[in-house]
């Protein structure tokens, strides 16, 4: 039997809302996929698109950026700046052939542990369905085009 493929997702969580939402999810003993590895930033506005690319290139299969709801940002509107950068980044990722499910932006306030946990579960399943990213083969090696050979080599999860 083939083992289920476990994607690795890097999460950039803002100190005030989403990181606390994750704290709350833990305190409320909400069980969710153990695939998210969290990096704390003060604000989602701190997330440089380079961090996302770095994580993907370093072997992550997905990146989640999580911030406060629009209008609730601890730093007034850092999350709006994160949103703008995210929209631009999405365009670029598409051109690189990276599926949109791999990089997601989530809003979760400090009281919304359950929303964050749901988002983590959902994203884990979406990325699991896509399979590993294999940046160096599919994005750089083939210059953005997935060649037949590469695709065949990629482990195809059973349920797909």
């Amino acid at each position, binding site marked *: 039997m083939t083992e289920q493929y476990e994607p690795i997702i890097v999460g950039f969580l803002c100190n005030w809302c989403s990181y606390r939402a994750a704290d709350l999810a833990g305190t409320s*003993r909400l069980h969710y996929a153990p695939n998210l590895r969290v990096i704390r930033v003060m604000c989602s506005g*701190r997330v*440089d698109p380079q*961090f996302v690319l770095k994580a993907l290139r*370093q072997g992550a299969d997905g990146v989640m950026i999580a911030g406060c709801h629009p*209008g609730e940002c601890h730093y007034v509107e850092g999350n709006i*700046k994160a949103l703008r950068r995210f929209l631009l980044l999405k365009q670029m990722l598409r051109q690189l052939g990276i599926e949109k499910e791999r990089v997601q932006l989530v809003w979760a306030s400090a009281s919304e542990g359950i929303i964050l946990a749901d988002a983590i579960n959902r994203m884990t399943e979406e990325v699991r369905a896509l399979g590993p990213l294999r940046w160096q083969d599919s994005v*750089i090696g083939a210059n953005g085009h997935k060649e037949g050979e590469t695709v065949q080599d990629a482990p195809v999860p059973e349920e797909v």
Partner: protein
Amino acid sequence: MSEKVGVYICHCGTNIAKTVDVEDVAVWAGDQPDVEIARDYKFMCSSLGQDLIEEDIKEKGLTRVVVAACSPHMHEKTFRTACERGGLNPFLFEMVNVREHNSWTTDDREAATKKAKALVNGAVERVIYHQELEMMPLEINPNTLVVGGGIAGISASLELADAGYHVYLVEREPSIGGHMAQLDKTFPTLDCSACILTPRMVEVGQHPNITLLTWSEVENVEGYLGNFTVTVRKKARYINEEHCTGCGICIEKCPFKVTDDVFEAGLSTRKVIYRPFPQAVPKYPVIDTENCVYFLRGKCKACQIFCPTEPNSIDFEQQDEFLNIDVGNIILATGYDLFDVSKIPQYGYGRLANVFTSLEFERLVNAAGPTSGNIVLRDMETPPDKVAIVHCVGSRDENYHKYCSKVCCMYSLKFAHLVHERLPDAEVYNCYIDMRTPGKGYEEFYNRLLEEGTHFIRGKVADITDSARTDEEEGKLIVQVNDTLIDKQRRIPVDMVILSPAMEARYDSRKITQLFRMGCDFDGFFVERHPKLDPVATMTEGIYIAGACQGPKDIPDSVSQGAAAAARVAGLIARGTVYIEPVRASIIEEQCSGCRICNNLCPYNAIIFNEDKEVSEIITALCQGCGTCVAACPSAAITGAHFTNDQLMSQIEGILWDVGKGLESIKKVESVAEIGD
């Protein structure tokens, strides 16, 4: 780079150890480069656990420390202090959250252990790049701004003023007092609202430590904890406050009357030059320029002609004044609005004359109100024989507000009592969904009403109509309600209906949150720092909240929250200097190209452009450390202390230690590309 990192993994009893193989993580971490020592311990936060860190720093010469335990929001400070005791700069420490973010969220021991290793490794890689930082001292200006002169704002102001600190109390209306001044009796003790409130108002008016700014609004807020500069617009009253004695002759002589929609809830009139109510503080009247004949047509001046003071106190030329006030802290007590009941058309408010809101009834039943306390119908003379009181109008309703407004059950019971008291023969029907009476003496009050003979009907009112089906219903208002206790639809003919509307956030609460740079929730209520442990602070340092602006609240709760906010502020003032985290951005002048992209990004206007040097500069005192500019700088000339690019990039590498094998091949491809060029 060669650092000696100490890694400590906490069992947290079994909280972490149950799901994460802590011994395995410790052994594994000990084998990582740069790690000098890795230990696991039952309770790292205990004094013995902290001693471990302290001793290792001293004996093994650790230069960096990583603790994997609970959330940094819980114990980061604890371990930073432990590092400091060991002689290590507290910022050369990094905390890993393996409890809230890991062990508590899964039962999969293998996955949790793997995740713990990744998180620990990320922290180790990050901490190597940490820099020594010093906490930043911040002087606290001892003056405080209180916004809102309702009972919460009054309590906060008096507490601070009595403690010897100066307070600027800003109120939008001509008088302080807020909603409480409009009420008749207060539940459950039934003491008269004015009797307990007005002495407090007078105290505010006379207190040497309180500068009272009524008929004023905050226009602008700049600065940060300890050093806010607030611009207050003092609207023109057209009264010279230095000369006015508050005798009230101008009000008496003013020949024009308009409906008083604010204080008397539309049930009575007031003069065009007016005081909202006789006990208003301050006593100075204000001219309503929208209705004043002099302002409309340039004639009249009756008030000026009859003003007995020398020199004359009426000043038609007065302009709005802008005051700049320096304060250290701000308490927001901006109160609430009542839900607009005409949004529920089936309850007929505005269409059916004898449907009243709770505030209208408060004025009706108030001895100082338009009917001198006589409960009458809209014709202002007929007393009702039957009264229905409808709870939860706009509260606990999917279509309007989902929350419970907390006070309506109690004041609806109070209304029932007042009707029984004033009209002993009248029948009173209270239509409620659930009776909510949590509070000292509240349940007893409910029991008292049960004995007084009020009819309690458990069910949500569907409709209020005047279309009669029987002779008995003719000329009456019919309240259609599903009595859920007997499972029957009932039609109750009454003469008067009182709607108990929801308390909602002020219509402009979102604007206020933007002005003061803090947050509000979906309903518009201000968000506290912690719902249980820090209910008066906000996420913005130096800004506190009190009263119904944070959520529906009764008088005792508002008073205690006002006092609590004052205590928090007084604590800061007494300390004089606070130390804040040095998580701030700074610009490397040599790398700045002067592109100014960052200039408009900063929500605190902390970035200015130096025209001489043609580079941007950061005013450290204004910077709050969000890092938005750091992420935006195309030249990487801005660094965010404690969240530098190096630190975060290394953490990304570290956290992906088990999958980052591809790095070599990337380098290979890149070098190939270089050759190609």
